[in-house]
């Protein structure tokens, strides 16, 4: 009974974190291009949009690096904080499906080289920022 309740609590925390993270990613994709367009009016919004997903992925990798070094091996209460921040928030903020969709979109538009670059930069920079988060967190 207690384990079931604790499991449900963990699930609830993951859901709260994922909800917040997903809304954060949506807000970035929704308002980021508009803010950018105010500064740089000549920028095409359709070109900018995939890079908002990219930004969300890089930021979430960085945050996950910090969260994992602080709470990765934790049990008990801190383990639940990891569920909220790591599995939930960072998992919801980062996204693979939209990123893959963006890559396919870029290929369909006939800009396959940008698609390849986007893919490489997604993986590479995310990894670099994860390490940065690990270093900062420890």
């Amino acid at each position, binding site marked *: 009974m207690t384990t079931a309740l604790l499991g449900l609590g963990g699930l609830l925390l993951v*859901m709260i974190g994922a909800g917040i993270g997903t809304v954060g990613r949506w807000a970035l994709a929704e308002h980021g291009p508009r803010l950018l367009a105010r500064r740089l009016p000549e920028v095409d919004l359709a070109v900018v949009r995939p890079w908002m997903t990219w930004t969300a992925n890089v930021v979430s*990798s960085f945050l996950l690096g910090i969260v994992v070094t602080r709470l990765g091996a934790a049990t008990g209460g801190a383990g639940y904080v990891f569920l909220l921040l790591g599995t939930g928030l960072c*998992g919801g903020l980062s996204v693979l499906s*939209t990123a*893959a969709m963006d890559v396919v979109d870029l290929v369909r538009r006939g800009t396959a080289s940008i698609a390849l670059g986007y893919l490489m930069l997604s993986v590479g920079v995310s990894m670099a920022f*994860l390490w940065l988060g690990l270093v900062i967190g420890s």
Partner: protein
Amino acid sequence: MHTVEMAALQLDEVEASRVLGSGPVQPGGLTARRTALLVGIGGAVGGGLRYLISVIAPTVTTPTLVEIPWATLWANVIGCLALGALTGVLEVRRAPAWTMPLLGTGLCGGFTTMSAVVLEGSAMLGADFPILALAYGMLTVSLSLGAVVLGLLIARRIARPVADPALHDGSRTPAALPGPGARVRSAESPVSPVEGEAR
């Protein structure tokens, strides 16, 4: 989100852009707050499902044995397939404005994750399993891209016949079979549910 801009840029996919041009699929009719709510609900459900998969199928990670995290991989592939299929359907069909925020950005987006993949790959590298890390990265990238394309193609093919939408939409909704279904249900309903619950 994707579809209108994308269709506008597709020069060879004339039919898709014509269908889309006739009716806005974008969440234009929704307020920003409502869209955020839909995205949040979808994301919470998606993240919860991803967590459940990882609980049901935990990954074995010891210093000497590192396994490919199948839970994350499966979640990602399924989510990519679903988003590809959703985008494909929205390219050829009209849909309510809440569809993409709730199911695409929210559910599929919350279900799939990039940060966990990066973390797991880096953990493999740190544990001195570079080949496995490379294999996992390649698997994730190739399978997710393949899943998006597959979902897109299949959904576009299935959702294509717009001429008789009733056949495709109606076959799954109970409204399509009002005759026999309704009669049988109404005849049994006073008795059967009570009996069923009593047992």
